[in-house]
């Protein structure tokens, strides 16, 4: 920081948007605890989410054409100081996270009140806000170590959020504990990887890292760093076979948490992977190409099938969705492993589309939990007639999960198949379609349970309250909207992909 000749022009609020993005929920979190009011916890969370969404929108609009905003924390210029660097890719992710939060929170009000003991509400929402700001922080920061810090903020609060499911099912505690162990290992690997990079380059700023790595080329230190980061992030994004924590975590967490996490947490991790694979390392490195094509790609395909099969046989709707998430993450990894612009576009679009789809479905799960007590197939049998709106949303979400034309899921799979064709990898394209067929089966099972099976005789379920239905339907309609209006998502994803691959903006 220059100490002499202080020529300072006052920064406006507009200049602070990148940091405000994180700061608003981040300050709201301790504020919730400090006020300590159970009644105020939700309004504070919701208000800060809305503000975040507005900011995210403003940022997205600034960078949608390929511009980059750089914000220096504490006035320390990078590479020395921490830099928040907003480009199309992370603005898109941040926007997704904020939007999901704004949609999930109204839903959470009733769902959390039902599933989480009342005395914990202030702390619950505080943890939620921390998780929320952490996830956005991971996306927005341009500093590799800062990524780790935010990753830990979000992870630690995630453990708490999952454990909050213990009010309903004590297994949430073990699930949270397992996740804590695995998450910590993942974070450790990640930070070890960053340590290697620092050792090899002497910098932590991602843009700077990219330049220096490109300049010096690959060496053992950097290669080891790459492997560690890949495994570390792989744990976070439930990269097969490192997904083993995920089914339990999503199953036993409160429904609102599952909805939020499924739609955002793994997606942010995918973003980090994208960022490291393409910005920091650059797709030109042989070791990266080799790893992605011979390790990540086969495992992604395995994930698509193995997890889908498991999902087919599940008897719990929520757990089925958890396994389907692992399969869907396979699609994103596949897109990344193609190492082409179309592939990365597919990964980013799928990240978004799968986010809204899973948000809708997990929220519907919350509605079933509220009304039927559980989501085992025999508990929700026949609810298609008793909860018509919720179930209709499940059908829409299910169609999007399958990738039926007219839904968001179709767009991403279409682009993914295109990417496979571009590469000339026909078998992979066939595998994508084949695994979609598995999705047809597990979605059909749910539809069959909901609509074709008779309801339990003791079932007293009625339609979910409006505060749940509206968010569910916002997400469900988004599935359809983004299945038809593809320009927004595809355009943003293309710009983002071009930015990540350092192509001229489109």
């Amino acid at each position: 920081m220059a100490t002499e000749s202080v020529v300072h022009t006052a920064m406006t609020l507009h200049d602070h948007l990148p940091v405000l993005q994180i700061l608003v929920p981040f300050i709201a979190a301790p504020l919730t605890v400090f006020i300590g009011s159970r009644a105020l916890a939700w309004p504070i969370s919701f208000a800060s989410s809305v503000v975040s969404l507005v900011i995210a929108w403003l940022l997205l609009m600034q960078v949608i054409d390929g511009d980059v905003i750089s914000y220096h924390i504490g006035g320390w210029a990078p590479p020395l100081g921490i830099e928040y660097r907003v480009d199309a890719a992370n603005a898109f992710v941040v926007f997704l996270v904020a939007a999901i939060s704004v949609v999930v929170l109204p839903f959470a009000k009733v769902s959390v009140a039902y599933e989480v003991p009342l005395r914990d509400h202030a702390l619950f929402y505080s943890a939620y806000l921390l998780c929320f700001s952490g996830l956005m922080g991971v996306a927005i920061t341009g500093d590799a170590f800062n990524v780790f810090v935010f990753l830990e903020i979000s992870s630690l609060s995630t453990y708490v959020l999952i454990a909050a499911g213990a009010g309903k099912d004590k297994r949430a505690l073990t699930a949270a504990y397992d996740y804590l162990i695995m998450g910590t290992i993942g974070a450790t690997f990640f930070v070890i990887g960053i340590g290697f990079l620092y050792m090899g380059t002497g910098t932590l700023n991602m843009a700077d890292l990219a330049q220096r790595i490109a300049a010096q080329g690959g060496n053992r230190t950097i290669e080891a760093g790459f492997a560690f980061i890949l495994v570390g992030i792989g744990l976070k994004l439930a990269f097969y076979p490192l997904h083993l924590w995920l089914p339990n975590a999503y199953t036993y967490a409160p429904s609102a948490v599952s909805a939020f996490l499924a739609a955002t947490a793994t997606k942010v991790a995918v973003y980090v992977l994208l960022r490291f694979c393409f910005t920091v390392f650059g797709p030109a490195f042989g070791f990266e190409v080799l790893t992605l094509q011979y390790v990540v790609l086969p495992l992604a395909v395995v994930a698509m099938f193995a997890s889908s099969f498991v999902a087919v046989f599940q008897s719990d709707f929520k757990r089925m969705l958890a396994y389907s998430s692992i399969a869907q993450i396979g699609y994103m990894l596949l897109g990344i492993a193609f190492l082409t612009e179309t592939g990365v576009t597919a990964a980013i679009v799928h990240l978004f589309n799968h986010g809204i789809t899973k948000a809708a479905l997990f929220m519907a799960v919350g509605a079933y939990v509220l009304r039927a007590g559980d989501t085992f197939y025999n508990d929700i049998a026949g609810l298609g007639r008793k909860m018509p709106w919720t179930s209709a949303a499940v059908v829409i979400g299910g169609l999007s999960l399958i990738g039926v034309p007219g839904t968001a899921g179709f767009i991403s799979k279409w682009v993914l198949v295109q990417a496979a064709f571009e590469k000339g990898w026909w078998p992979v394209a066939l595998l994508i379609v084949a695994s979609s067929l598995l999705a047809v089966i597990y979605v059909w099972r749910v539809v069959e349970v909901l609509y074709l099976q008779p309801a339990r005789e003791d079932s007293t379920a009625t339609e979910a309250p409006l505060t749940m239905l509206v968010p569910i339907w916002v997400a469900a309609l988004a599935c359809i909207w983004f299945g038809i209006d593809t320009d927004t998502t595809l355009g943003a994803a293309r710009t983002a992909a071009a930015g990540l691959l350092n192509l001229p903006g489109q």
Partner: protein
Amino acid sequence: MIRHHLILRVITKMLIGPIMLFALYVQFHGDYSPGGGFQAGVIMAVAFIIYGVVFGLATVQQVFPPWLVHKLLALGVLIYAGTGVVSLFLGYGYLDYGAFTPDHPEHGQHWGILVVELGVGVTVTGVMVAIYYAFAARTPAISDEDW
């Protein structure tokens, strides 16, 4: 209440004052000498924890009730983040302490780091004590019906 361990109790009472004082020393010299909010927070927490260890959880919770711990815990973060917000409102970057004394950025940075460290100290104190409370107040093993 344990009525033995007379020595321990006397010594503890004697030590608590100096420990707190030392914590404050570490806290406010953190910017120039080894120390700072983290260390000071832990030391400050030690004062309470040792009190709880010797005199029992109930006693220490009368002095430092759990709700207050929660508030302090949050307050520290608010102080830290608030510092940054103030600089932000003064037209500088987030956490750019130069904002406090525009003519003399070094002074501003000095002030800034002092406040931030205070926030860290408060939070760390709260967290340490909260962890101690959490472990010390553990409910008995979960009964079978709860599973």
